C-alpha cells in the first residue's frame, strides 16, 4: 500500500526541512520526499494543502494502567487516545500492577501493544524492584526485552545512593534514567503548590524546593557518574535554571515539560476541582513563564503529557483524598498549538521538534524524522482549525481533565503509524 501526502508544509526539524513538499509512503517506510510526486505513484492520495506534515509525534511519559487497572485505561484504549491526539508513539511508565520490573511484564506490554495498540508503545522499566527504592531491578533483562529507559516515576527515589547506582548501571546500556524529582520529606504530603494560593485555600502545600533540591542532587549525580539523566515533568523556574546551567557544563541531562505546566497555574486550584490535582502540582505564573522560556530556548527537550487516567468516582472526592494526575494524550498537541504557536512564542519548527525529534532523542529512539527510509510515522495537523475540548469524546477510558470546554486554535488531523492511517479527521 502506497500513500501519497500531497501539498503539505513538511517540517522535519532534524534535517532542517520546512517547505511545501509531497511525501510518499511505501511498505511502512518513507520512500520519497520531493516536489510534485505524481499521483500515479500511490494507491491513495491526500491533499494536505494548508496543513503541516511532521514526523510522528512521540509522548514519552504516559501511564497506560495495564496490567492492573484496566478500568482506567488499557494499552488499546490508551493507544487509541494517543492516535486521536496526534501521537504515533508513546513510552509507558512502569507503575502498573504488577510493576514492570521484570521481563514478563515487559513482554506482556509489548505483546498487547503489537496486537491492540494503533501506535508504537515503548515500555519504561522500573528503576527499583517493586518501585520500592531499595534494590535495582534487573535492568539488563528489561533492556534486553525492549525497555527504553528506567524510572520509578510516581515513587521518587529517596535514596541518593540508589539513584547514583542506577545512573552508573544504566550507562552500560546507554539508556536514560528518568527521574520524578520530589524530595519526599519536603513534599510532606502536600496536595498542591505551596504558596499564596495554598495559604488561601488551606490546602497542604508541597514547596517548589522539594523538586529543585532533588533535581540538583540528581544532576550532580549524573555529572559524577557520566550517566544519562532525564528529568520528567519539570515545573519550577529554578529547575529550568538548573537544567540550563547543567547543559552548559556538558552534563548529560535532558528534560520534559507537560502542557498543564505551561498553560495553567495554581490559581486553577481555587474551587477545589480535583482535576487540578497533579504531581508535580500547578505552580505560579513565574514558574509557568520560566517553563515557556525553557521550551523556547532549548533547555527543555520535549513536551510529554504525563497522561494519568483515573476513574470519575476516584476524582469525585474531597481534594485531599483524590489521586494525582490528569489525562493528556488527547489535549497535548492542541494545547501546545494554542499556547506555544498561536501565541507566537515558538516558531513551528521548534514546536514540531518538541513533539517529535526532541522526545526521540531523549529516549534514543530511531524515530522523529521524515528521512527517506525512516519508519512512516507521520502527524498531520492544522494550526488554524479551532476545537473545543470535549471529554465525552475522548478515546481514553478516563475523563479527568481540567481543560473541558476550553477553546483551542490548532489540532491534530491525521496520524499515520508505520504507513497505516490510524486516525483521520480529514
Amino acid at each position: 500500500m502506497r500513500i501519497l501526502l500531497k501539498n503539505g508544509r513538511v517540517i522535519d526539524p532534524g534535517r532542517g526541512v520546512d517547505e511545501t513538499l509531497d511525501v510518499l509512503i511505501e511498505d511502512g517506510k518513507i520512500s520519497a520526499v520531493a516536489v510534485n510526486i505524481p499521483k500515479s505513484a500511490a494507491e491513495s492520495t491526500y491533499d494536505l494543502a494548508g496543513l503541516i506534515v511532521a514526523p510522528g509525534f512521540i509522548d514519552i511519559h504516559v501511564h497506560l494502567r495495564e496490567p492492573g487497572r484496566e478500568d482506567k485505561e488499557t494499552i488499546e484504549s490508551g493507544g487509541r487516545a494517543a492516535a486521536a491526539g496526534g501521537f504515533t508513539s508513546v513510552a509507558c511508565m512502569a507503575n502498573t500492577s504488577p510493576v514492570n520490573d521484570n521481563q514478563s511484564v515487559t513482554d506482556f506490554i509489548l505483546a498487547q501493544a503489537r496486537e491492540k495498540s494503533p501506535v508504537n508503545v515503548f515500555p519504561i522499566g522500573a528503576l527499583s524492584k517493586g518501585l520500592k527504592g531499595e534494590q535495582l531491578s534487573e535492568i539488563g533483562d528489561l533492556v534486553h526485552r525492549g525497555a527504553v529507559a528506567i524510572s520509578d516515576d510516581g515513587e521518587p527515589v529517596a535514596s541518593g545512593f540508589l539513584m547514583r547506582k542506577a545512573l552508573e548501571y544504566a550507562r552500560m546500556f546507554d539508556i536514560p534514567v528518568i527521574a520524578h524529582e520530589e524530595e519526599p520529606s519536603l513534599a510532606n504530603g502536600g496536595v498542591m503548590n505551596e504558596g499564596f494560593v495554598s495559604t488561601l485555600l488551606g490546602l497542604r502545600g508541597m514547596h517548589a524546593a522539594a523538586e529543585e533540591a532533588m533535581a540538583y542532587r540528581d544532576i550532580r549525580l549524573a555529572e559524577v557518574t557520566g550517566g544519562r539523566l532525564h528529568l520528567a515533568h519539570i515545573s519550577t523556574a529554578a529547575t529550568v535554571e538548573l537544567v540550563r546551567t547543567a547543559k552548559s557544563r556538558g552534563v548529560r541531562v535532558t528534560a520534559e515539560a507537560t502542557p498543564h505546566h505551561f498553560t495553567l497555574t495554581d490559581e486553577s486550584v481555587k474551587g477545589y476541582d480535583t482535576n487540578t490535582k497533579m504531581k508535580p502540582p500547578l505552580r505560579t505564573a513565574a514558574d509557568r513563564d520560566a517553563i515557556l522560556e525553557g521550551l523556547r530556548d532549548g533547555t527543555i527537550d520535549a513536551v510529554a503529557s504525563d497522561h494519568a487516567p483515573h476513574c470519575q468516582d476516584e476524582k469525585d472526592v474531597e481534594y485531599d483524598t483524590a489521586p494525582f494526575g490528569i489525562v493528556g494524550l488527547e489535549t497535548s498537541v492542541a494545547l501546545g498549538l494554542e499556547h506555544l504557536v498561536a501565541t507566537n512564542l515558538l516558531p513551528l519548527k521548534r514546536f514540531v521538534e518538541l513533539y517529535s525529534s526532541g522526545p526521540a532523542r531523549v529516549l534514543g529512539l530511531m524515530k522523529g524524522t521524515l528521512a527517506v527510509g525512516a519508519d512512516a510515522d507521520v502527524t498531520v495537523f492544522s494550526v488554524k482549525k479551532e476545537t473545543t475540548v470535549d471529554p465525552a469524546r475522548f478515546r481514553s477510558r478516563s475523563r479527568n481533565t481540567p481543560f473541558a470546554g476550553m477553546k483551542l486554535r490548532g489540532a491534530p488531523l491525521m496520524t499515520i503509524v508505520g504507513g497505516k492511517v490510524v486516525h483521520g479527521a480529514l
Partner: protein
Amino acid sequence: MRLKSRHLLGIESLTPEEIVLILDTAESFAEISRREIKKVPTLRGRTVVNLFMEPSTRTRTSFELAEKRLSADSLNFSASSSSLVKGETLIDTARNIEAMAPDFIVMRHQMSGAPHFLARYCRSSIINAGDGSHEHPTQALLDAYTIRQKKKAIAGLKVAIIGDILHSRVVRSNIFLLRKLGAEVILAGPPTLMPLEVARLGVKVTHSMAEALDGADVIMMLRIQMERQGKGYFPSVREYYNLFGLTEERVALAKRDAIIMHPGPINRGVEIESKVADGAYSVILDQVTNGVAVRMAVLYLLAGETGDADSAEERPGH
C-alpha cells in the same frame, strides 16, 4: 436585603454589607436567648442535618441550640455513628442525606474544600462549620459580633491573632472578615506555624509577641495542638509558652481595655495563662453565648428570610 448565595461556605465570598447584615440580624436573635421561653417558630417545618465528619462538640452544640431555638427539626450525623460506614465516600453520604430532603446541611470536615464539594451535589443550603485548615465562617462571625459588642465598631481596631496560624481554620475567616470591616490585623507565631505569603491577605506578620500586642485592641489566641511538638513545628510546649504564651505581663502591653478571645477549647498553660483566660478582659464565654445568636441569624437569612426583622412575617422579636 438578602444574602446572595444560598450557601455559607466561607467569609471570603461575602461582601461587607452581607457581613453587617448577619451581625445586625444576630442582634435581634440574641434577645430570644434571654427570654424565659427561648424559642421562636421561624424555621418550623424545616430540616437541618448536622453532618460532623470530624468531632467538634462545641460547634455542633451551638448549631443544635440555634436550630432548636428556631424550631427546626434537626438530625445529627457524625463520623463515629453507624450511618457513616467506613469506606463510604462523601458523595454517597451526601446522596443519602440529600434523599431525606433537608433544607440545610451544616458540615464540619477535616479536609479543606469538602463543603464546596458537597455544594456541587446538594440542593440544600450548605453551611460550613469548619473545613480542614480553610474556613470557619460562623466562628469569625461570632468573633466579630463579640468584638462589636465590646468595642462598638470594628473599623480602625488593631487585632492581634496569635498562635498556630498554619493549621487554623479560624484565622483565614477572621482575616477576611476583619479586613473587610476595616480592622488592622497582625499575626504572631513561630515561622514554622506561619503559612507562606500570608501577608498578601493584607495583614502584618511578626514573630514577636511584644510587637503584636503593642497597642492591640483585641487579642485573639489560637489553640495549639500538643501533638505538633517534637514534629518540627516547635521544640516543646515549655518553649512555646515562653515565647508565645499569653501571660498577665504580656497583656499589659496591649491597650488597657483590650479584650482577650479564644475559639476554644483552651489549653491552660500552653497558649494562655489561667489567670488571663478567666480574667476581667477575657470574653471567651461571651463568644460561646454569641455563637448561638449568630448561627440563628445565618440559618434565618439562608432560609430566604429578609434581614429586616421588622418586615419578617415571623419576626424574631423586639
